[in-house]
């Protein structure tokens, strides 16, 4: 048996990781193909793949995927561009923190999805509304988490920099930011995951394109195969973006691993 915290080899890790997917699909196949679950409610894996293929080749699902990815990335980039500098300032300067923190903490708990009806009223069901949903859902989370990370910067590093002649600006630019850059990247990776949820919800409620729109359309047709395919595509894109983010972080912050 394995001891607590004992590492596993790389190959074992891969094999174990894949075997869960295999088990998952096997259980799904038995439940559906074995006739234990009605086809109306749950398509079997083969139908799902077939429907997916049809979606991609016949119904232009690729452009839906493209639109959804574009929305997530767009909204997320805007949120990050606003939130990271604000978070750094909040973490670094306590008066700014005292000023913004109570509001941001409150706004963080406002569910982005609940804003959708209001946003439709304000911005229609166009791209602006989608971007706003993602923006509202991400911006406060990023601000707060970045502020906490920056606020927890090792004091002795800051003091060392002061004794080496850093100005206050120098402390922010050449200690607080680089010291927390890996944490900030990790925060962005986490929030990007949540942004995916917001965009799909926004597309489910009011949209004429996108993965969420396809899923809600398929519901009308009782096409569970298509719906499941859409959900799985979201999962796969999430996995890919996560992987890319991690690879980038490893490249950008070699000192974290050294």
């Amino acid at each position, binding site marked *: 048996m394995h001891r607590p915290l004992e590492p596993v080899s790389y190959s074992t890790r891969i094999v174990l990781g894949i075997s869960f997917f295999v088990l998952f699909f096997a259980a799904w196949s038995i439940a559906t193909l074995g006739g234990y679950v009605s086809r109306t409610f749950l398509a079997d894996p083969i139908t799902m793949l077939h429907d997916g293929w049809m979606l991609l080749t016949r119904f232009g699902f690729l452009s839906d995927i493209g639109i959804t990815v574009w929305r997530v990335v767009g909204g997320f980039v805007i949120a990050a561009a606003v939130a990271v500098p604000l978070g750094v300032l909040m973490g670094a300067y306590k008066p700014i923190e005292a000023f913004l923190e109570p509001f941001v903490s409150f706004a963080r708990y406002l569910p982005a999805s609940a804003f959708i009806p209001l946003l439709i009223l304000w911005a229609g069901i166009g791209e602006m509304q989608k971007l706003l949903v993602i923006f509202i859902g991400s911006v406060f989370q990023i601000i707060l988490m970045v502020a906490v990370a920056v606020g927890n910067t090792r004091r002795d590093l800051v003091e060392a920099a002061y004794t080496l002649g850093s100005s206050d600006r120098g402390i922010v630019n*050449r200690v607080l930011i680089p010291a927390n850059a890996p944490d900030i990247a990790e925060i962005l990776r986490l929030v990007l995951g949540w942004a995916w949820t917001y965009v799909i919800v926004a597309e489910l409620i009011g949209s004429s394109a996108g993965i969420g729109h396809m899923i809600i359309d398929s519901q009308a047709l009782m096409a569970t195969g298509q719906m499941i395919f859409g959900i799985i595509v979201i999962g796969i894109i999430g996995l890919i973006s996560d992987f890319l983010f991690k690879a980038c972080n490893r490249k950008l912050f070699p000192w974290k691993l050294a």
Partner: protein
Amino acid sequence: MTRTILTIENVSRTFPGVRGGAPVRALEPTSLEVAQNDFITILGPSGCGKSTLLRIVAGLDRPSGGRVLLDGREIKGPGADRGMVFQSYTLFPWLTIAENIAYGLREKGIPKSERRDIVASYTDKVGLRGFEHHYPKQLSGGMQQRTAIARALANDPAILLLDEPFGALDNQTRALMQELLLGIWERERKTVLFVTHDIEEAIFLASRVIVMTARPGRIKADIPVELPHPRHYTMKTSPEFSQLKAQLTEEIRAEALQADGAH
């Protein structure tokens, strides 16, 4: 007597009590004059206010009373004219060894080519050639502290402050580090204020040992060390050294006992 570079005038420090507790009197009014090119060690039991005093000189903490003058000017905050080496490892983990040593020079806006030469010279002086492109995490504690010393010296401060810089190192490494630091001092005669609770270390390095009392700290004795330079580690077994050590051990023992009894 050479020129006085640093004057500590009746500096005291009282920390406000936490959660309604009584305020902590860490440092009684303390005065000390440091001559240029001197190597002064401050020796005292732990908790006696050594770090507090050094941090006030560095400008990282404010005295409750009194003032500190460097070259006749009152210290208001931290600055590049007072280099500091801390007990904890404070190299910037995101910078390589060479970039760490160059940090202060970069903040001063010294051009890259000049920076490179200074960094190379200090990398050599602390024996870290070949490690320029390593990250701090990849180095042992002793190597990290050598880098920290090089980083402080590369900035060419008027005075070098060291707060138990070798406190976390094993005995062998500590002895080597003492020789390395002393060697640099013997060549460059940078003014040094070195805090320690290790009696041997205090004697071996110093031209003057300042002994502090238990908390609240104040200066109890000011003992010149007349041992000749250059010093070699074998000196630690010489009769003169042993005599000084016996004297200081008595002084410190009394304080340690008092500190222990007070708790």
